[in-house]
């Protein structure tokens, strides 16, 4: 019998499991006894496990591409008519494949730490390696047992599979969003492992977070960009005209991201002033625990959502894993609490470290709110049998003020010095930004932005933007004076040599773009619904929408009913094709919007209903959504800023111009 992809996959996963278990022992022994040979053995285990799991993933892709319907996963998520691109990406279309992808990424991170992380800090790194091996073992157990075995066979081989869920084969973004999200989730295992190692070894010191700083930044950035990609998918594919619905799975992704953001900032306080140690450990444990909770909420079907595919045995297992992690890490933290006491106090309330402390509190409050809002329906039902919903109105009302508070802290934090600021400093630093804030508020009122929160958002966005511009200006001026560089060179050098700081400012600018996009699109969207016959047209917000009839389109894996629209006015001249998509196995059609994206407005069209007998009329909903493109732009800017911050800095020391030539008010 020729070995099939299924055989290859099964064999590699089952071979990897004992190796991973061996790795735990080898790494733990190496750390305890400082044994070089055990470490070498652990390293090679890590590498081989990674190779094996990647082979298993490739085997799954092979099985999908060759339409091997004897494998249950392939039969459920693939069909003969599925296009190649969607066939390949259905590796992560459903539960088992997603867990396989997760395992592969985790094995990769483990191998990386094994080879690059252990030389620098032998004991810490090796202990972290043991922790990582334990996690890999858990996930390998999932994929080699009926809980989530991707290569489980079925006795009856169907002639054709079901094909992927219609929502998952409507847009190429499905190729990007899950892997990004998973990379973000899984890579957080590394800082977590180091934190646990630090607690186990009793090294209350700060080396663990310095070593993992770049890992944390990269995970955070990938998770953030993954969330924005998911938002974009919701907007461009789900066809309801919005980008965030506080759906439980969306919440599951944003919770670890919020806490991770707090963590990234809070570590700076530990680096600079050796404070907030227990905060940082708690934040990294919370981030990791929330990634597992998120997976649990998504995969166990416990809360209704777009992503809840099945209710399978994996729920209790993930819950058990989550409980074990939380109990062990919190236990370790409480045990080592005495050694983590801060040497000094935070100091003045108007100091950078105090601001970071406040932002920790606000981020945690925001995360707790999302967590409780998501779980509250479950709690209420468990306690009283009452069934209730908590949706957008609640989350929007509660999270927006917290977000505004964070915007405010984002503006003042970088401007305040460590240890505290005098009144003169405050006046100097903040006059221009406060004036900018006033300009922002007046601009909001002038453009007809409704609502106090929208006006406040504009004010705070202008405030933050002004502080960032101020910081760049000061930095450029300093470099020009000290090195005689031109403004352009100075700017580039700021990013290159002080990437962490100025990349951070770029990230803040990205967040400002996102805030403005959200406030504007939520407050000034115009929505109209009309029933039209071919040749009809109507006006909305300066655009003219003409309807040119319905037509059928047949594609290999789906049928479409397309409404031909022409959008003119306000400089736009575009044809849009909102459609209803009919998949062979689905009872109801899936809507596919027609979007004309622009820097100023998006014109978003949905085919709502149509004349089923003769196709003479169609009901079209048109939304004109201002500034929503700035959301995606802002996300890209955040990613760019993170890249700038993560790049290693050039070590070359520069020559200074003699200071005698410099004016006395340098850096003012």
């Amino acid at each position: 019998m020729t070995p099939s992809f299924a055989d290859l996959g099964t064999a590699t996963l089952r071979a990897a499991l004992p190796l991973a278990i061996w790795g735990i022992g080898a790494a733990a022994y190496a750390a305890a006894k400082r044994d070089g040979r055990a470490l070498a053995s652990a390293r090679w285990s890590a590498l081989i496990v990674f190779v094996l799991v990647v082979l298993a993933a490739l085997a799954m892709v092979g099985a999908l591409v060759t339409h091997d319907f004897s494998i249950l996963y392939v039969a459920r998520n693939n069909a003969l008519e599925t296009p190649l691109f969607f066939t390949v990406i259905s590796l992560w279309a459903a539960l088992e494949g997603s867990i396989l992808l997760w395992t592969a990424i985790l094995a990769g991170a483990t191998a990386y730490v094994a080879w690059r992380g252990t030389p620098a800090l032998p004991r810490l790194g090796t202990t972290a390696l043991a922790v990582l091996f334990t996690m890999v073992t858990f996930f390998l157990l999932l994929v080699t047992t009926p809980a989530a075995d991707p290569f489980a066979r079925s006795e009856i081989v169907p002639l054709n599979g079901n094909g992927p869920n219609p929502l998952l084969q409507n847009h190429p973004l499905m190729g990007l969003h899950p892997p990004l999200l998973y990379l973000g989730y899984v890579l957080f295992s590394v800082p977590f492992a180091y934190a646990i190692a630090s607690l186990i070894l009793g090294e209350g010191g700060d080396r663990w977070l310095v070593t993992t700083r770049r890992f944390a930044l990269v995970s955070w950035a990938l998770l953030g960009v993954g969330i924005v990609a998911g938002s974009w998918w919701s907007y461009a594919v789900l066809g309801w005209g919005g980008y965030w619905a506080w759906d439980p799975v969306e919440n599951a992704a944003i919770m670890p991201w919020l806490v991770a953001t707090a963590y990234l900032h809070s570590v700076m306080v530990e680096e600079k002033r050796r404070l907030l140690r227990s905060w940082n450990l708690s934040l990294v444990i919370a981030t990791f625990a929330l990634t597992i909770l998120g997976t649990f909420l998504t995969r166990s079907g416990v809360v209704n959502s777009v992503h809840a595919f099945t209710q399978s045995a994996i729920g209790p297992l993930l819950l058990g894993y989550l409980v074990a992690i939380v109990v062990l890490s919190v236990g370790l933290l409480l045990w080592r609490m005495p050694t983590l006491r801060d040497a000094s106090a935070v100091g003045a309330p108007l100091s950078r470290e105090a601001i970071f402390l406040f932002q920790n509190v606000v981020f945690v409050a925001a995360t707790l709110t999302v967590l409780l809002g998501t779980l509250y329906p479950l709690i209420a039902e468990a306690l009283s049998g009452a069934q209730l919903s908590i949706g957008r109105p609640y989350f929007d009302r509660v999270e927006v003020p917290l977000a505004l508070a964070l915007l405010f802290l984002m503006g003042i934090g970088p401007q305040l010095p460590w240890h505290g600021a005098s009144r003169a400093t405050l006046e100097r630093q903040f006059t221009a930004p406060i004036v900018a804030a006033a300009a922002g508020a007046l601009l909001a009122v002038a453009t007809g932005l409704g609502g106090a929160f929208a006006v406040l958002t504009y004010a705070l966005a202008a405030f933050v933007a002004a502080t960032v511009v101020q910081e760049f200006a000061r930095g450029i001026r300093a470099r020009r004076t000290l090195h005689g560089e031109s403004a352009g060179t100075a700017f580039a050098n700021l990013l290159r040599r002080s990437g962490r700081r100025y990349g951070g400012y770029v990230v803040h600018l990205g967040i400002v773009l996102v805030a403005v996009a959200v406030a504007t699109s939520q407050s000034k969207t115009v929505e109209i619904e009309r029933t039209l016959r071919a040749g009809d047209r109507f006006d909305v917000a300066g655009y003219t929408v003409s309807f040119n009839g319905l037509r059928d389109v047949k594609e290999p894996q789906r049928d479409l009913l397309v409404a031909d629209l022409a959008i003119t006015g306000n400089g736009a001249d575009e044809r849009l094709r909102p459609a209803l998509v009919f998949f062979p196995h689905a009872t109801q059609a899936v809507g596919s919007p027609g979007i004309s994206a622009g820097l100023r407005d998006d014109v978003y069209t949905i085919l709502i209903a149509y004349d089923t007998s003769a196709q003479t009329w169609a009901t079209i909903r048109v939304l004109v959504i201002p500034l929503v493109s700035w959301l995606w732009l802002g996300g890209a800017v955040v990613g760019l800023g993170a890249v700038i911050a993560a790049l290693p800095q050039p070590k070359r020391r520069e020559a200074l111009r003699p200071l005698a030539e410099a004016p006395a008010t340098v850096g003012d």
Partner: protein
Amino acid sequence: MTRERALILIALLAILGAVAWSARPHDPTPAERVDRITSELRCVTCQGLSVKDSPAASARQMRDLVVQRIAEGRSDDEIRDEFRASYGDWVLLSPPVSSWTGLIWLVPLVALVAGLAVAIGRVRPATSSVAAPSARELAALRERVAREEALDLPQTDGAE
């Protein structure tokens, strides 16, 4: 008053004015009432979307019903209660503040206040006041800051 303080004061007043202006209470138009009510009603055939957001047929029919009831002169609460009678509290996307389920509105407030109280408790201002530096010391400090900014002394980066 220094120039900076005057500017700051004017700017703050402008912001306050803008916020107050945009928050001024006004009677909602029927269209605004429809939007508000439908954004708080859950589309019963969807995954969690509001009636306002959802393009589903059932959501559109619910919206038509809301429009009709508003034209008939019903209040927001009466309209919501009509749907509650059929579907229970589940159909409201925002738990009513009155019943015990309204407890959820307290949670973020409590979390924030408690957290801030703890945080502010930890922030202790400097006990000793340091004498202000002289002009020469200030100039020397500025020089040093400029040098350090330009040199970009490495942070406590470990090996990666």
